[in-house]
């Protein structure tokens, strides 16, 4: 049971950290300064969430691993984030598609998690849900703006969504870990999130004038460490300094 809680907290932390890391790659390179700032802002929120979730995961595990240890000293097979967040930034359309799908899901997840019987998870989620609501709104506005902008932006927005659809099902995946924690009132039942998610996505796509989503075959694996090829490269960069100076404090 503790192990399930550890894994669950780890997944939540990994999702936030990996996406925060991706977004921070934009820093200094976004289409406008305003966009640059808003992406950095979302990245900052996500890194903050990661610190809390990973820190809690380390406590639950009880082996002396803190958030930094978990972030910088695990290799790819031990990462439990969903595949969507590790996808490369691509162009701004892909970045926004990823953000919109992920944050829309994360928003309803955290809404539910704020009522978790695990007090610490509930607290972290309650604190983070306001941030996430902003991420979801911000990215939804961009989906609409790009979908309803120019011909090019519409095509790029559609391409961005097309890249990410196959990772949507994984967000709602149920495995033994989730099952056990749902039964205990700790985790949120993924099935319960799906209608809210689908309704919101459908509404935004409609407003953006983009075609309805038809999900292709799901690609799964992230939750058990089977990732895309992208994650390893991200970890190489992210972990280089802590790996190089394992004894150092910063």
């Amino acid at each position, binding site marked *: 049971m503790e192990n399930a809680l550890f894994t669950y907290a780890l997944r939540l932390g990994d999702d936030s950290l990996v996406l925060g890391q991706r977004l921070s790659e934009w820093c200094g390179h976004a289409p406008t*300064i305003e966009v*640059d700032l808003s992406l950095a802002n979302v990245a900052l929120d996500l*890194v903050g969430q990661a610190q809390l979730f*990973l820190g809690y995961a380390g406590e639950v595990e009880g082996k002396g691993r803190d958030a930094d240890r978990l972030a910088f000293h695990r290799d790819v097979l031990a990462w439990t984030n969903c595949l969507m967040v590790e996808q490369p930034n691509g162009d701004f359309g892909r970045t926004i598609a990823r953000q919109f799908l992920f944050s829309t899901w994360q928003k309803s997840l955290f809404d539910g998690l704020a009522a978790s019987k695990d007090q610490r998870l509930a607290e972290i989620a309650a604190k983070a849900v306001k941030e996430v609501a902003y991420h979801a709104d911000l990215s939804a506005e961009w989906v609409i703006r790009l979908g309803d902008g120019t011909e090019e932006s519409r095509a790029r927005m559609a391409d961005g969504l097309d890249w990410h659809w196959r990772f949507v099902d994984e967000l709602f995946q149920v495995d033994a870990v989730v099952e056990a924690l749902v039964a205990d009132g700790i985790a949120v039942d993924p099935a319960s999130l799906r209608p809210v998610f689908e309704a919101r996505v459908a509404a935004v796509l409609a407003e953006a004038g983009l075609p309805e989503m038809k999900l292709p075959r799901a690609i799964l694996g992230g939750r058990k460490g089977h990732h895309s090829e992208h994650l390893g490269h991200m970890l190489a960069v992210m972990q280089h300094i802590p790996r190089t100076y394992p004894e150092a404090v*910063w």
Partner: protein
Amino acid sequence: QELVDAFEARVAADAFIEPKDWMPEAYRRTLIRQISQHAHSEIVGMLPEGNWITRAPSLKRKAILLAKVQDEGGHGLYLYSAAETLGSSREEMIDALHSGKAKYSTIFNYPTLTWADIGAIGWLVDGAAIMNQVPLQRTSYGPYARAMVRVCKEESFHQRQGYDALIVMANGTDEQKAMVQDAIDRWWWPAIMMFGPSDDNSPNSAQSIRWRIKRETNDELRQKFIDATVPQVLLLGMKVPDADLKWNEERGHYDYGALDWEEFYAVVRGEGPTAKERMEARRKAWDDGAWVREAADAYEARRRLKAAA
């Protein structure tokens, strides 16, 4: 001439000039140049630091650095806005940057090689910037002065964070100490060159001081910075990379070695070690983002049209 006299009198009385007020064309042009250059520096300055966000050595440091770089983008925004009040559009200013017509601080044409560089930038570069900017909080142009108040407050915070990061490293492993010393060796001279040419070679200074666009000379500010910073270097247990540096009891200041002005002017001309990288990164961001800006404009135009209908 009446207008000019009234303007000069107001400035001399340390009153603020506001956007709607009459001002001499040269004053306006000088300010646009200076403010936009300052804005460009903030934006280009995101790059050497941004280079380390993805490799920050801890989650805490990653968050701090993200927040810092975000602040710098924010400074860029206020400053562009301040310059816009003088009748220059953001697009014009950015075009001038990308074409190489407008300058930005030479310091950002040096690379960040280790994590210690991030500390050094916060401490030395933001430190030098503050030294330059504190007097500008009382500069004669109101919007610029008000922007400076906010900028200075945040920069002081960054400076403390940068120095704090170096204290941790200076108390760390031998490798960390070596990185700190190496960072100081590389950033010291460029940092003290940030105050610009020495007063003998700074032709615009007198006019700028009369107009309260500047309030102290380059050499005065440089001396202030050196006097304040040398003790901080020593406190870290590090050396200042200047064999001629010594305390001058009589002057009550540090004497320091000759600056390499050839290097300075080369970097001003765009020949700094990472100048090509910086300009390429900025241009690429701008070009790659064109479709996004166009889409936002098209959407906005359509929305307004609908609202009007």
